[in-house]
């Protein structure tokens, strides 16, 4: 199977829901369980919320959400063009946060819910989260 879609959003918190349903609907072409779809939605929420809160703390910006299905594999790439991250290693530690009222678990959630997860960032250029997930059901068939 092969499919592709691209969603471009303004960094408003009211748009997180749109990102969630779009990715979940796109993903549902693969044999994900409802629970797996829920995990994908949480991962997308966390990535998009990070763009809104951390990537564009002062002014509104654009968020790109690229979705792709190749074979049994879903890839979702969430990109912002905001402030970027100085030390990518540091923010990946669970409970690391630069905002007091936050818990620093977003990236840890993404990591645990998706099969593969990469964080790329350049200071003052922006941040990109690459997430991959394959239906559990499919992995078992192949074993």
């Amino acid at each position, binding site marked *: 199977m092969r499919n592709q879609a691209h969603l471009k959003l303004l960094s408003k918190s009211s748009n997180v*829901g*749109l990102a*969630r*349903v779009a990715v*979940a*609907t796109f993903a549902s072409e693969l044999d994900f369980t*409802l*629970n797996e779809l*829920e*995990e994908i939605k*949480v991962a997308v*929420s*966390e990535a998009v*919320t990070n763009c809104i*809160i951390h990537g564009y703390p002062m002014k509104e910006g654009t968020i790109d959400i690229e979705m792709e299905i190749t074979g049994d594999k879903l890839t979702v790439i969430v990109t912002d063009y905001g402030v970027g991250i100085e030390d990518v290693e540091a923010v990946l530690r669970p409970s690391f946060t630069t905002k007091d009222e*936050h*818990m620093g*678990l*977003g990236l840890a*959630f993404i990591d*645990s*819910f998706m099969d593969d997860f990469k964080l790329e960032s350049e200071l003052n250029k922006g941040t990109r989260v690459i997430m991959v997930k394959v239906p559990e059901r499919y992995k078992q068939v192949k074993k």
Partner: protein
Amino acid sequence: IGEIRLHIRDDGIIKVSRSLKKIANDVRKKEEELKKKNNCSPSILELSKKTGYSKEEIVQALEANKAPTSIYETVYE
């Protein structure tokens, strides 16, 4: 974490995944109720406030209930 299906989100809201069918039923019921009470159809925003489901949950639940891609599919069924 995934086992518990309880997700603690950035905004502190705890969410549990709910069945789309239940959401669709609850929303339709609430819609009827508000229609009778106010003599006009409620908006999705009101339904979201009154049922506690998010707008996107409601949209997805209603789409799952019936999803013809084009009128043709309904007509030719």
